[in-house]
């Protein structure tokens, strides 16, 4: 296996389910050692892409390379090099945490002393103390997620796939997983392919982000690049009624306005100097008799990029839904 190759490469990746094209020609390159955040609304095809990358699903067309191997023709080579924690902690409630990790280690061909050593290494990550000897069915959601993550790491994979690892968790558990994922990458150099519904996680963690919409890769870049693509400042205006064409045109005609986007009753004005523009925007809307519920000035977030690319805000998507 060549060390120079990217960790994950797809070319023209397509997956159809009958007449439905869930993934439509995706080209991805994930570099070794990076955290790649894969974002998209429910049903966009995120999970389908992950399942193809981890050998659970064959592509209809296109090529994939994971850790230098083809998941279709060399699935075992891929499996030896990846770990995965999929949506919902995939665990067996009728085993103890220790039994589950031991079985996982045995299936990766580890010797008993290697398994014991790895369990020792992962103890802090799991951080469930005596509960390691308890049935997994008695664990909390956060404990299950951490055990799931440990199971994915028992064999020291080169690439870790995490499909919405924090969905459904309370903020404290979310933060713990979030911090651990960063440390796994920083300290062990593990490449991480991460899907999440929490854009602030992707923003803070991911070196690069890809946004998938309707099976296509709609945007890709570092979080900073993507946010800069929306301009340096954004004025977000929530109107009392849906946006009219006249209001849109009036705002577009103001000086120093880079772009104006409208989605339902939300207007987004991009500008290089939002602070200088905000009063002009408010006056113009007032002059036109347009009712304003809220007006805020801020720098762009990934959610703004998401809105521009997909037409909806991810943060408003209903969390926790199975997407594919």
């Amino acid at each position, binding site marked *: 296996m060549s060390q120079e190759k990217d960790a994950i490469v797809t070319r023209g990746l397509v997956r159809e389910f009958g007449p439905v094209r869930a993934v439509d020609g995706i080209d991805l390159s994930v570099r070794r050692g990076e955290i790649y955040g894969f974002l998209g609304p429910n049903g966009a095809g995120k999970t389908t892409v992950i*399942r193809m990358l*981890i*050998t*659970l*699903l*064959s592509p209809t067309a296109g090529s994939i390379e994971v850790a230098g191997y083809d998941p279709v023709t060399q699935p*075992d080579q891929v*499996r*030896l*090099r*990846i770990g*995965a924690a*999929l*949506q*919902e902690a*995939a*665990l*067996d*409630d*009728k*085993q103890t945490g220790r*039994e589950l990790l031991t*079985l*996982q280690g*045995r*299936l*990766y*061909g*580890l010797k008993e002393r*290697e398994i014991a*050593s*790895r369990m*020792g*290494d*992962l*103890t*802090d*990550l*799991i*951080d469930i103390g005596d509960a390691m000897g308890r049935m997994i069915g008695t664990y909390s959601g956060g404990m299950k997620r951490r055990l799931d993550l440990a*199971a994915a790491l028992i*064999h*020291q*994979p080169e690439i870790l796939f995490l499909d919405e690892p924090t969905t459904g968790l309370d903020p404290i558990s979310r933060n*713990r997983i979030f*911090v*651990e994922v960063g*440390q*796994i990458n920083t*300290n*062990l150099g593990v490449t991480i392919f991460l899907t999440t519904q929490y854009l602030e996680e992707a923003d803070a963690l991911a070196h690069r982000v890809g946004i998938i919409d309707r099976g296509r890769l709609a945007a890709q870049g570092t979080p900073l690049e993507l946010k800069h693509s929306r301009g340096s400042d954004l004025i977000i205006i929530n109107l009392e009624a849906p946006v009219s064409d006249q209001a849109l045109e009036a705002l577009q005609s103001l000086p120093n306005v880079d772009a104006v986007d409208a989605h339902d009753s939300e207007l987004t004005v991009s500008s290089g100097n939002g602070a200088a523009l905000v009063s002009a925007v408010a006056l113009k809307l007032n002059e036109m008799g347009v009712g304003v519920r809220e007006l805020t000035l801020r720098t762009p977030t990934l959610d703004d990029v998401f809105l521009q690319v997909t037409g909806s805000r991810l943060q408003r998507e209903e969390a926790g839904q199975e997407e594919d």
Partner: protein
Amino acid sequence: MAVATDATSITVHARKAGFFRDTFAVARRAVRAMLRDLETVIPALCVPVFMFAVTVGALQDFAENIPGLDYRAFQLPVAVLFAVTGVSRAITVVTDIQTGYFDRLVITPVNRVALLLGLMMADFVLIVALTIPVVIMGFIVGVSFETGPLGIVAFMLLAGLWGLVYNGFPYAIAFKTGNVAAVNLSFLLFFPFLFMTTLFIPQEQMTPWLSTIADYNPVTYILAAERSLITDGWDPAVILYGLLSTVGVGVLSLFLALAALRGRATRK
């Protein structure tokens, strides 16, 4: 917060464990789960005892008008087949599929066949264990084995082998459908096997149409082999037919189970 990932004591290299190690690893998990779920085994013990008591109670006097027929000995193999048929971990396969744990297993380099054979190995342990109380029940009601202690072992193993090969059907349904209700219904497959054979009376006493069907039913030969071990002594031809019938069913059931497993593990 504790940092788990800042150092590792050793570097490990994942590798294929090999067929036997994979099979034993899967079997160990299944046996462990079985021991924790002993309450699910109770019906497998109650049904044969009930069937044996009711059938012998209702038909013994009538059936023993047939010269030379010991009806309790005749019914003991039926009881043992009821005890061992359909005792499988197929429901746990469905649970694994539904919880996503099956996906976790198949993204390891585990040998796919080991995922099935490990479960069946655990089933075999339980199935053979289930024959013990049935044999003891036979002793209590006065059944003795013409073939002696070795014949008892052969009786248990043949029943165990049947139970094992039959399990291919519920596993095939579990892997194919991932549905608990469908797996539960798989026991119905056993009904034609068991009721269209020499369940209640010897084949010579059956109506011609049912006797003809019984000729083509593999369970007829398995029951004959089991009965011969009790009442006739060692009869190699009868035992061989019993074994061949079991193997025949096994080839079919395992083919179906492995095909369903392959379909589940590699989603085209």
